[in-house]
């Protein structure tokens, strides 16, 4: 999950599979769509001239919120393969489909969270209710599991009780917590948090921000200012700017990613709430159109419910045939 200075991958906690474990649940939920797709494709001899197969594929992609342009790209690639005689069975079609999706979702750079700097600064932003605060709690916990110390800065000084919410997470994750009075200046809190990490010799600073719609110009300016203040304090910081995108989000997610990335250089996406039935296809649309990689996924409300993003798993979860 993290890229550290010594080049070693920080150790990952083993995911628990007690009772209705997380993965079991996730697999369960995703298998619905999988089953639907699988049923449609299973066993049949695949005839590229059969428009119905293509329509079903298109339907499945669109129903997963992949959006029209990304869907068209995927189908065109498959059609090209079929025309070239490379796809003859449904199984080949399904495998190639997953491969294409995984390819589109695979970033050229290291997909891990970069904590090589000391302290490394992570700025977390996104639309209201997408899961910023929760994701920060989870990241902080995973950092501690990996043996790193962490300061959390509460720069959401707008929403009622946002500070209390974050403080609860900080306690659960064993992280230091830096805040100001409600209504305070978010950039000042970010600055204080970074300063605290430096003076206490902590490894990582995570800065929470207030939820904002990408269309709110003054709030996007505020975000730029937070970014600027952090950059002014430490060269090269923030080392990661993470944008939370709710997996249930439709095509508006593209606009969110576009405008947030215009305001501050977004380095990765945290795709949250993948534990529902939403398939998060909007992440494919974002990767396809903007090239912003997904780095982490949220799969529940518990503190451990965060995973590194795996393009192949994602593609498989979307469409894999069979159980």
């Amino acid at each position, binding site marked *: 999950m993290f890229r550290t200075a010594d080049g070693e991958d920080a150790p990952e906690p083993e995911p628990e599979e007690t009772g209705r474990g997380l993965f079991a649940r996730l697999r369960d*939920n995703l298998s619905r769509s999988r089953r639907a797709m699988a049923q449609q494709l299973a066993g049949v001899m695949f005839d590229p001239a059969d428009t119905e197969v293509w329509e079903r594929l298109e*339907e499945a992609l*669109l*129903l*997963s*919120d992949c*959006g*029209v342009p990304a869907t068209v790209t995927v189908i065109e690639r498959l059609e090209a393969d079929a025309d070239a005689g490379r796809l003859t069975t449904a199984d080949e079609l399904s495998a190639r489909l997953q491969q294409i999706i995984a390819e589109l979702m695979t970033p050229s750079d290291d997909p891990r969270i970069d904590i090589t700097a000391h302290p490394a600064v992570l700025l977390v932003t996104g*639309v*209201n*209710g*997408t*899961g910023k605060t929760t994701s920060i709690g989870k990241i902080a916990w995973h950092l501690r599991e990996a043996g790193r110390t962490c300061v959390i800065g509460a720069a959401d000084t*707008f*929403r*009622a*009780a*946002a500070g*209390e*919410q974050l*403080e*609860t*997470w900080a306690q659960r994750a064993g992280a230091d917590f830096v805040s100001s009075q409600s209504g305070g200046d978010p950039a000042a809190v970010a600055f204080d948090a970074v300063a605290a990490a430096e003076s206490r010799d902590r490894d990582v600073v995570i800065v929470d921000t207030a*939820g904002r*719609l*990408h*269309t*709110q*110009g*003054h*709030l*996007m*300016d505020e975000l730029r200012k937070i970014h600027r203040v952090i950059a002014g304090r430490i060269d090269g910081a923030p080392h990661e700017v993470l944008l939370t995108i*709710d997996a*249930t*989000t*439709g*095509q*508006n*997610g593209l*606009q*969110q990613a576009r405008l947030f990335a215009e305001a501050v250089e977004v380095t990765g996406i945290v795709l949250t*709430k993948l*534990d*529902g*039935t*939403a*398939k998060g*296809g*909007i992440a494919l649309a974002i990767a396809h159109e903007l090239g912003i990689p997904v780095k982490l996924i949220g799969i529940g*409300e518990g503190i451990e419910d965060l995973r590194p993003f795996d393009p192949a798993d994602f593609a498989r979860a979307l469409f894999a045939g069979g159980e």
Partner: protein
Amino acid sequence: MFESLSDRLGATLDGLRSQGRLSEEDIQKAMREIRLALLEADVNFGVVRDFVAKVRERAMGAEVMESLTPGQQVVKIVHEELTELMGSAGSGLSFANRPPTVVLMAGLQGAGKTTMCGKLARVLAKQKRSPAMVACDLQRPAAVQQLQTLGKSLQVPVYERGTDADPVEVAKWGVEQARAQGRDVVIIDTAGRLHIDEELMDQLVRVKQATKPHNVLLVLDSMTGQDAVNVAQAFAEAVDYDGVILTKLDGDARGGAALAVRAVTGKPIKYVSVGEKLDQLEPFHPDRLASRILGMGDVMSLIERAQEQISETEAREMEAKLRKSEFTLEDFLGQLRQVRKMTAGQGMAGLLGMLPGVGRQIKNLKVDERQIDRVEAIILSMTPSERRNPRLIDGSRRRRIAAGSGTNVQQVNQLLGQFKQMQRMMKQVGKGKMPQLPGLMRR
């Protein structure tokens, strides 16, 4: 940004007009555009299919085939059908004969339930009722404190029993509390839950059974994608809600998810939420949401908001100017400032999203908030006579203005070009020819 359906169909169909009657193939193309537009707006795939079939039937009729502007005719049909599908204008809450009226909020995580409790309480207090709120989101850290803070700012009591209690018990106790204290409406906040989380859905059912609410409201994020159908259906099966509140409509989401809810459950949309502040709640208007889904702008909302902000005399002066085509850079500056007032707290894009055809033109002018600052500086660096008559502004004046405003000559040129375009557009509006307005003003 998305193209509006109006632009797309105009390009597809109106051009063909010159060739005489529309062919089957033309209609096919148009239906494809409609399908794309609706999918981009997050209307559910299945709903789109049925909807397009219906529109197709009507589009084959005489009203389109013989029209001079078939593209606009099809847009009109789509808009009408969409409005129809959207149901009637939002009716408010139903009130119990014997108070307290109980309102139960439900929805996914992060939809905006807690804030919505505050907004409803505020509306009710305005209506001279005495609301109270019950904190039953014991799941998310500090959700109780959030509701308490809202209650304090509204001076509305919040009943809470910490986070160790059972939410069903707290809900029941809260309603009793309201009754005992003579509050006439009690709003129950609940934890966000996934529609497939059986345990938590069951808990919601038990809260409903224990409190016998007169209104169960589903809070739905307007940015929701295709999954909205599953969410709407699962919550309907569990708690048979009475209506939907659509949140975060102050952004640029088209809100097509709402259609799925209507189409699949038949439940009405009651309110729309347009901001984080507690007064940003509006009744639902089906035709406005239809326009928005089609990317045709929210004409009525814009006009209403403008009316709040611009005095009547100002408006009349403006109109007279438009008719005489005397639109100067000074007016332009005045308008920009007006726009800024109107968009206070929600940004240019919010406002632009509400403008039809005109919006598209302004969009093409690429106005954004930082640019407003620049434009303001440039205009302020002109002499009054230059502002009234931009033709005076020659090369050396441009350099002077650029230096004075801290911009460059290119930016000054750009502004003058934009202004000219705007002036032309205003002239058209002044002559009563609202550009690109597909019969929407006749509502």
